[in-house]
């Protein structure tokens, strides 16, 4: 069974169509990347899959659950990390992880989730500091930890390392790879072609609300006779 099956997805805001009938599948345990320029429809697609936005037309199945019909069930198997997500600033890092964990488990199981989250965040003693004292990198690590500690069946990660320095970005990528290896399906979007090439098993290039190319990084490079995914992207987008 595919983790995600998107068929003819359209998302409109009034007369403007942000997503114009895209279809793609994500296999279980796969890391699937959506790449494209600003305003291409990546974030809108991820928001629809995260149950945040209503579907205008088309269908989306997440682990066999019809998203339009049963969004509450979909929320039980996904974890969404928005691009510029924040955490509650009045909480300490550990308190934030516990607040989230207790929506998924109780008692010792919740303790286990928090412990796993602290391991992923790797913030040391700073985990007991208020979130509003964290640097951007620390806050993002906390949020990645929040998203992955529950071991979701599908993690939806929007611009995973946007705005982070090399070291923080590298650490987060390593964590995502490790959790993907343990069975969590990853659907991510990025502007960072290198990151996509390093992380993703398959890629969909999205432009102007449409998927214009799809395949493994190696396939795409071969198909477009390109050195890297950035070249593929330029060739595809410029036509």
């Amino acid at each position, binding site marked *: 069974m595919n983790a995600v099956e998107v068929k003819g997805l359209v998302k*409109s*805001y*009034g*007369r*403007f169509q942000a997503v114009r009938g895209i279809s793609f599948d994500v296999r279980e345990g796969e890391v699937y990347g959506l790449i494209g320029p600003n305003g291409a429809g990546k974030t809108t697609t991820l*928001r629809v899959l*995260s*149950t*945040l*936005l*209503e579907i205008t037309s088309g269908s989306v199945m997440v682990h066999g659950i019809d998203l339009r019909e049963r969004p*509450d069930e979909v*929320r*039980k198997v*996904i*974890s*969404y*990390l*928005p691009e*510029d*997500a*924040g*955490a*509650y*600033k009045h909480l300490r890092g550990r308190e934030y992880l516990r607040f*989230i964990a207790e*929506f*998924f488990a109780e008692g010792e199981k919740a303790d286990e989730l928090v412990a796993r989250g602290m391991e992923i965040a790797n913030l040391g003693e700073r985990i007991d500091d208020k979130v509003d004292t964290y640097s951007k990198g620390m806050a993002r690590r906390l*949020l990645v930890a*929040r998203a992955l500690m529950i071991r979701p069946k599908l993690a939806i990660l929007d611009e995973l390392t946007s705005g982070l320095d090399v070291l923080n970005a590298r650490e987060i990528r390593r964590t995502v790879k490790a959790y993907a290896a343990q069975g969590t399906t990853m659907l991510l979007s990025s502007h960072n072609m290198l990151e996509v090439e390093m992380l993703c098993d398959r890629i969909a290039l999205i432009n102007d609300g449409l998927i214009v190319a799809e395949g493994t990084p190696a396939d795409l490079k071969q198909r477009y006779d390109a050195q890297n995914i950035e070249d593929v992207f330029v060739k595809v987008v410029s036509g």
Partner: protein
Amino acid sequence: MSNLSKIIKKEVKELLTPATLIPVIIIAVIFGSLGGVFGGVEESMSEPQKIAVVIEDNGELGQVAFAVLNSSAEIVYNGDDVKEALGTLEDAGGSSLFVIPSNFTSNIMDNRTGTIEAVWVMYGAGLMDSLPSEVAASLLTSVDQAISAYMITMGMTENASLVLQPTQLVETTIFKDKVMDGISPGAIAGVMSSQSFVMPLIVMMVIIYAGSIVISSMGSEKENKTLETLLTMPISRTSIVFGKLVGAALVGLLMAIIYMFGMGYYFDSLVGSASIDLGEYGLTLGVGDYVLVGISLFASLVFALALCMILGIFTKNYKAAQTMTLPVTFLAMIPMFVTMFTDFDTLPTVAKVLVFAIPFSHPMIAMRSLMFDNYALVLSGIAYTSVVAIIAMLVAVTLFKKDILLTGKVARSEEKGRSPLGSMIRRFVLKRK
């Protein structure tokens, strides 16, 4: 265009938005309306008061008193039947009946104070409602002066204190079918000012505090980008809405309790020296009455919070959230001012409908209404507030499931000339079909 002009133009454009302009216009309209109300009261006070007079005294001084009253007021009844006088007075909308008893002249002639009996008809318990009787009472000073002048002319100057004050006033106030001997409307309004001021103030503060908590919470969730995470968690939208509402209600009620203690103590100290115990006249509230006031306050609070939640859905950030609380503040301020200075029962019909339509009015008027056993008004107020509160909650929960929660605006209509709200309704109807 100079650099300075460019900056000024940019600042004005940035600051002069509907969100900043509309609240100021609403304030101006509210204060303008209040000015009109108070101006109207002042104007009506300067007109001759409608009074009824029952002269039982056939003596010279009774005629003097009548002449003074006749020259300064509009006498709607002049006869000898007190009951008939009261009926005529109430029909004419007057508030003062003066009875000159049969021994009025003889008492003064015998060096005793003459008694004038005044029966005040009070139509409402607001501070403004005691004004007509106070104006009418000032007529008696003119009566005193005329009788003093008569006594001096007639050489009756042996008793100087009697010449200075030849009459005494015996008052009875009739208010909502309750007859209260020895009390003036001003004294009743003064004692009731505790309820007149404290309850509306507390209700307003609770609504504004709890409301701003809900709106700010929504603004903060959007600004800090925590809302999206919350919405993708395995939590029902209804739980999120109710969680936010109950949290805000609890904090709002805590604020109310703190305010109630402070304001209650303040007003007790102001009216503590009053010698009137309204309980003697049956004007007290029982446990059941307090329960009804509580239910009215609760229903009103639920409506306020649901309304704020709806407004919060449209807010984009914390700063915008602060502006969003203003409509709720104004809605709470209108009944607060109205109930502080006037009585719901004495309002013109249009004003009554408007005040009734604002759900925040009902806990503000509940206490006074229950004191005079007006259960119909309180119960209908609770029923109305509960209905609008439930509707507002359903709207809030529905909007929480819509894109508008994240986009903060209704999508542009696909058809020209159709309003976004119209399109939403149309889509809803089509979906139902």
